[in-house]
């Protein structure tokens, strides 16, 4: 009888103590954990119904194997969802450590080595990363159970006892129901080599010595075991199909036809260093140093197939660094799979060998070898190096989430949940912006629905599936596609019953404002709520895709049954084994124990050599990192560094690049920075920067900096010129001149009318009383035309608020052909002032946007362009249009104090100065320019965002290039189909403005001849970032 394995016990205690306590600080900040929590919440609330309305306007949870979610759901009945999640995580940790032990025992047949394996598994950086950074609970669960099943499979094939077939299949079933990819690829990469090893062992039994195994004996052994392999193979295949049959049915029905989402694991790790770090360096960690040993061991005859598999996994895990993974997997699989899982499997597979290495290093022949060759001290140094290396990787990996948080700071959800429950706000859909994966946690806590979601394989709306974005929520990180998708949702929110947006990221504010959204309130957790007027609530009945009842029952019963069954079947064995209550025959794999007597000296040398190479590579990498980041080494470096600092708002660092001779103090510099507002300084992200020398001498240079900034509205290209000087071997930037403009008044007053709408005056849960519903303000369409310009169709026009209250304006245009067939509809986006005071006029333009890249032929543009426009693909030629305008009482964003102070024209440009005469700082001024022909008829509307804001009582210069409208064509100016609040526009005009003075408009036109126009009219719209 063997002693209890002290190393395993140690591994379990340390593992549970270390991981079990740290998950409380890491798991909720991981990428995936909260998604699983949302799924768990779904099962906790509706166990048998796979349809969930809360994400993507409805999706099915049958798109992801349910076991882990259902377990969390079940446990949530005891102590809530998070209790369930942490309990399952603890379970996964224990299963992983014991699984690694059993796998190690199987491979090495040595309890001591297996003990080391378990201990190293606890500290393996790949496990830490998967659990504490990625939060892939189902993946860990599936992998751990797969590790547990491997010895059983070995025993079945080796011994052919039905008992082992049952145990192995029961475990495979659990693996399948917890994660679908693990068993499929696990089959290939773990079980195939395992089968190879069993055959080797059987062959060895015959010839008594591994060296004597030849192809002939191998084939003999294979024939002997053939039927067992076939039986196992087929029954596990059946299990994979049967246990998650609804999943396969669903994938068949809704194939993943989406545009692939870029994933870091497919990058070239040498080019994208961050991906290399996360998907290569961290998972491999200390293992990198002993790669030759791992290969050497795995390519020994017994493990030959593991060696092949390990090599494959290692190569596949390198992603886009080499072209091999792409060729091996093919385009489709390469773009769907996340390749980091191959590295995960490779490093897990390496664990037993690493355990063996540790054993031999600490108490085995390697110790002797090294001590004999290099002395005892060196052995201790090397041992210490490994210890430090392991600990360094553990701490480094654990702290990654702390220093480079992958998620925004934790958001208190309660105020949002309360807001959604209040006043029937959950009758509309909502959208979160800048929440990261925490949006899943919000969704789990509310019944309200969102158009977004966090499990991209289940996306359904074409607006989402045709773009490579995971979520609308983080669309700014996905460049043009993200913002493009988001803009469609923001412009036509009625289509999705989207009324509320919770914004945790100021970046999106301008696009929200210019799409006609308004700030409602700031919740106590700092989240800004935006709302859109004129959006109907979600209808009482919404469509869903139903599945047959038997699939629902299978889905909701089989996973839990598999775990019960596996528990009942396997617990006996564990019971006997641990309690030693019944004498068990030793598992047959323990027969193949190797005596570690003589460590190959050649290998020691080779491994030393390899470790040296790794060290050199790492040092070189570190050196490159230093050189690239030494900011003042050259003129270009200092400019890049300066813009980088400004981009990240690290102004103190930016200041350190300023020439000290300029005599600007830090406080002066900070002051100058703080007084600039606008889209560039407040809402932009530096996309690319090109630096070229205008002039260069030894000691100074004039550089031209072409910058491209991403803002939520436009990609802004701006060129700056800087003088750079060298001083004491360091390059410095000279400051730009400050505007000395002095406003005339220190203190001044301004009066304005403010408005307030009670909403519901009666405190009641009933629908708002009809007396409290305000009359919709009446608008009048003054002109409306269908125009074809540059191959695109647009509806342009002018609309006036003819009522006595301020109005929010929503305009929806629809195009028809001669047969009155509807071709397209869209709303006015940012070519309009959405908020009008009484009697105010705005020009508007509706561009008909299609869903970008909906046809696969379109190529994705390589860089970001938020203003990217995808014209809709019209089958037929539109000849008529319909305009539906809706007014709703507005009481915010009514700032009208921006004036045009100066104007100058050249043939093609308009220059001028805006002056802000009010008391609010205008963050983003917008110009709306309408063009008129010689009869003073409107022909086109254009707009322009200014990149700098206008401070109070100050001026801001602007520059606008006038358009060439020579190829513009008016298709229809028939206004019979213009409606306001459902009434015909003509009736409104007759009633509200029977004696309209049309010459007023004509008198307000600026004469300016150009290509295709004779007059223009200028309007200004102002977005205020921080209303006071």
């Amino acid at each position, binding site marked *: 009888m063997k002693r209890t394995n002290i190393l395993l016990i140690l591994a379990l205690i340390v593992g549970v103590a270390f991981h079990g306590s740290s998950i409380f600080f890491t798991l909720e900040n991981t990428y995936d954990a909260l998604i699983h929590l949302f799924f768990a919440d779904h099962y906790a609330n509706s166990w048998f119904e796979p349809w969930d309305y809360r994400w993507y306007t409805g999706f099915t949870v049958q798109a992801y194997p349910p076991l882990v979610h259902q377990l969390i759901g079940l446990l949530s009945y005891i102590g809530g969802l998070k209790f369930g999640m942490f309990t399952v995580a603890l379970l996964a940790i224990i299963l992983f450590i014991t699984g690694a032990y059993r796998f190690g025992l199987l491979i090495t047949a040595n309890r001591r080595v297996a003990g080391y394996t378990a201990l190293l598994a606890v500290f393996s950086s790949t496990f830490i990363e998967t659990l504490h950074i990625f939060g892939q609970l189902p993946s860990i669960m599936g992998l751990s159970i797969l590790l547990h099943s491997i010895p059983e499979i070995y025993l079945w094939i080796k011994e052919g006892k039905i008992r082992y077939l049952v145990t192995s299949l029961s475990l495979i079933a659990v693996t399948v129901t917890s994660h679908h990819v693990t068993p499929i690829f696990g089959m290939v990469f773990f079980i195939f080599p395992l089968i190879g090893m069993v055959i080797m062992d059987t062959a060895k039994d015959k010839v008594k010595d591994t060296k004597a195994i030849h192809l002939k004996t191998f084939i003999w052994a294979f024939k002997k075991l053939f039927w067992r392999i076939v039986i196992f193979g087929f029954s596990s295949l059946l299990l994979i199909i049967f246990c998650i049959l609804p999943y396969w049915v669903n994938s068949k029905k809704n194939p993943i036809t989406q545009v692939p989402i870029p994933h870091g694991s497919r990058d070239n790790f040498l080019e994208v260093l961050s991906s290399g770090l996360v998907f290569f360096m961290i998972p491999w960690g200390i293992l990198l140093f002993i790669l030759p040993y791992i290969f050497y061991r795995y390519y020994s005859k017994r493990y030959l197939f593991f060696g092949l598999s390990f090599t494959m996994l290692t190569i596949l895990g390198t992603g886009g660094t080499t072209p091999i993974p792409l060729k091996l997997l093919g385009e489709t699989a390469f773009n769907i799979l996340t390749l980091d899982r191959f590295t995960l499997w490779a490093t897990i597979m390496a664990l037993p060998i690493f355990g063996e290495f540790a054993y031999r290093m600490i108490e085995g022949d390697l110790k002797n070898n090294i001590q004999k060759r290099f002395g005892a001290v060196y052995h201790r140094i090397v041992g210490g190096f490994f210890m430090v290396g392991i600990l360094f990787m553990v701490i480094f990996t654990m702290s990654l989430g702390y220093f480079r948080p992958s998620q925004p700071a934790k958001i208190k959800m309660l105020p949002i949940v309360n807001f959604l429950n209040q006043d029937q706000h959950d009758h509309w859909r909502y959208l979160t912006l800048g929440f990261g994966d925490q949006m899943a946690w919000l969704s789990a806590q509310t019944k309200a629905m969102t158009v977004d979601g966090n499990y991209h394989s289940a996306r359904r709306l074409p607006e989402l599936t045709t773009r490579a974005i995971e979520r609308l929520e983080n669309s700014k990180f996905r460049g043009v596609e993200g913002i493009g998708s988001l803009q469609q949702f923001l412009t036509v929110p009625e289509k999705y019953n989207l009324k509320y947006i919770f914004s945790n990221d100021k970046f999106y504010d301008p696009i929200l404002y210019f799409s006609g959204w308004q700030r409602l309130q700031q919740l106590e957790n700092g989240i800004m709520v935006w709302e859109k007027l004129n959006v109907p609530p979600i209808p009482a009945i919404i469509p869903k895709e139903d599945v047959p009842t038997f699939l629902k029952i299978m889905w909701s019963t089989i996973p839990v049954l598999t775990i019960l069954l596996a528990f009942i079947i396997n617990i006996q064995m564990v019971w006997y084994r641990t309690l030693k209550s019944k004498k068990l025959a030793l598992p047959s794999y323990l027969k193949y124990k190797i005596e570690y007597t003589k460590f190959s000296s050649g290998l020691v040398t080779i491994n030393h050599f390899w470790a040296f190479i790794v060290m050199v590579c790492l040092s070189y990498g570190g050196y490159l990192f230093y050189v690239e980041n030494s900011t003042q080494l050259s003129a270009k470096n200092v400019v890049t560094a300066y813009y980088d600092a400004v981009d990240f708002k690290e102004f103190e660092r930016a200041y350190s690049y300023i020439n000290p001779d300029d005599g600007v103090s830090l406080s002066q510099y900070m002051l100058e920075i703080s007084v600039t507002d606008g889209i560039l300084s407040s809402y932009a992200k530096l996309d690319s920067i090109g630096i070229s020398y205008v002039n260069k001498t030894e000691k*100074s240079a004039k550089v031209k900096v072409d910058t491209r900034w991403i803002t939520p509205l436009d990609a802004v290209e701006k060129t700056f010129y800087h003088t750079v000087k060298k001083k004491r071997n360091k390059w410095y930037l000279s400051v730009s001149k400050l505007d000395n403009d*002095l406003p005339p008044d220190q203190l001044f007053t301004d009066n304005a009318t403010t408005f307030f709408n009670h909403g519901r005056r009666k405190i009641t849960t009933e629908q708002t009383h009809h007396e409290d519903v305000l009359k919709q303000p009446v608008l009048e369409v003054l002109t409306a035309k269908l125009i074809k310009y540059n191959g695109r169709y647009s509806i342009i026009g002018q609309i*006036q608020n003819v009522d006595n209250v301020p109005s929010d304006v929503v305009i929806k245009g629809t195009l028809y052909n001669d047969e009155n067939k509807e071709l397209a509809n869209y709303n006015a986006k940012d070519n309009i002032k959405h908020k009008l005071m009484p*009697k105010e006029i705005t020009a508007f333009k509706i561009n008909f946007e299609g869903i970008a890249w909906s046809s696969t032929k379109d190529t994705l543009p390589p860089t970001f362009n938020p203003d990217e426009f995808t014209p809709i693909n019209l089958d037929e030629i539109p000849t008529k249009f319909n305009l539906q305008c809706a007014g709703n009482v507005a009481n915010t964003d009514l700032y009208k104090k921006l*004036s045009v102070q100066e104007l*100058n024209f050249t043939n093609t440009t308009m220059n001028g100065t805006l002056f802000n005469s009010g008391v609010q700082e205008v963050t983003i001024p917008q110009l709306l320019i309408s063009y008129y022909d010689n009869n003073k008829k409107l022909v086109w509307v254009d707009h322009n965002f200014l990149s700098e804001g206008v401070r109070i009582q100050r001026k801001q210069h602007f520059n606008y290039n006038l358009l060439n409208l020579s190829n513009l064509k008016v298709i229809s100016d028939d206004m019979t189909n213009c409606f306001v609040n459902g009434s015909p526009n003509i009736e409104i005009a007759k009633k509200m403005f029977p004696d*309209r003075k049309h010459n*007023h408009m004509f008198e*307000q036109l600026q004469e300016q001849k150009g290509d295709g126009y004779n007059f223009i009219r200028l309007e200004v719209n102002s977005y205020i970032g921080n209303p006071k």
Partner: protein
Amino acid sequence: MKNYIYIILLFLFCISCGKKETPKKQNTKNVAFTLITSKKNYTVSDSISLEFSTNQQNNAILVLKNAYGITAIKPKLNSTKLTYKIPSNFTKIVGNLKWLLVLDNSTKLQGTLNITPETNNYPKLETYLGPRSIVAGGKDFSMLVNAPTDRFDNPLQTGTKVAIKHQFKKEVITDTLRVKNLVAWTNIFSPQKTGRILITSLVDSTKSKELTTVILPDNASNFTVDYSRNHKYADGNQIITFTTSTIKDNHGNVVSDGTLVLFTVKDSMGNLLQTNGTTINGVAIAKLLHPSKKESWTVTAYVTGAAKSDPIMVDFSSAIKDYKIQLSTNNRIITIGPIESFMQQFVPDGLTVTVCIYTKDGKLLNTIKTTSLKGIAKFNFDENFYKEGTYNIKIEAAGIIKNKVIMLK
């Protein structure tokens, strides 16, 4: 196998339990009925029973139909007398109640009862008024709709009186409407003045709540515009304020607060500048900076489409008559100024000064803009970028242009 036998036996037992009831055939052709109850008109919620006498005992059913639905009831038998008690959900509904006496699928007798609403037993009154805001001037109106009902929600009879009262300023008008087509309605036209009309209705002893419609002003009529400023000089720094007269509509009401007034300013170049004001108590105020050079502005204000002001002229005389240019010894630093304003004070900080640098052949090299500080603007032509040689420069400040040829050393 044994179980199957049990199952089959049980099954057989089960089906043997059913027994088809065959009704007794009765010859009903000769059965005759007479209506005993003679009353035809009832008030709602009266209890109604219909009695029939017959020559032969039978179970004829009475089918009832009204506007809401249909039902069939069984009689209470008393030898040859059949009594049908009409259920309360049929007696509570006003209108015609049609009945049919049916025996064996043949209608033996039929008739109609008339149920009328209660008139004075605390009727209920629903009132609707909309729109809740109308425009002054007598053309626009709010519609008041009264739907008086009895306590069972039956509309009261056509012709029932509904008294309405509406108050505007000191005046209270009383009127009487009559129910027609279930409702009593009227249009309340707007008066000439703004304010609010309070409306109430009364049926019998039942009163409605207070309803309100707000009278808003009509479209603006022409107005005048004036300006105020600190001085007449174009220093590019002081603020000129444009103010409208109190803007009123054609009925003398002050236009609604917040009405947008667009001020267009035509400068001497013919360019249209603009500024906006929103009215408070009919007065809109808009501001602009003084121009930085001699100007003559023509200002017109619009409530576009409805009203405008007569244009006014505003002249600015130049604050800066001239300025000096000084060159450093190597000509690389150009100092412009001190720029003096109309009282020989330094011009307020921030006056834009532009320098254009041309080569000898007139090719534009660069345009540099700066702003004055303490009356002085400085330009530095760095030797790294401007090689030694002769350059033409053009300096512009406050509309005064100066050309100079400089020799950079």
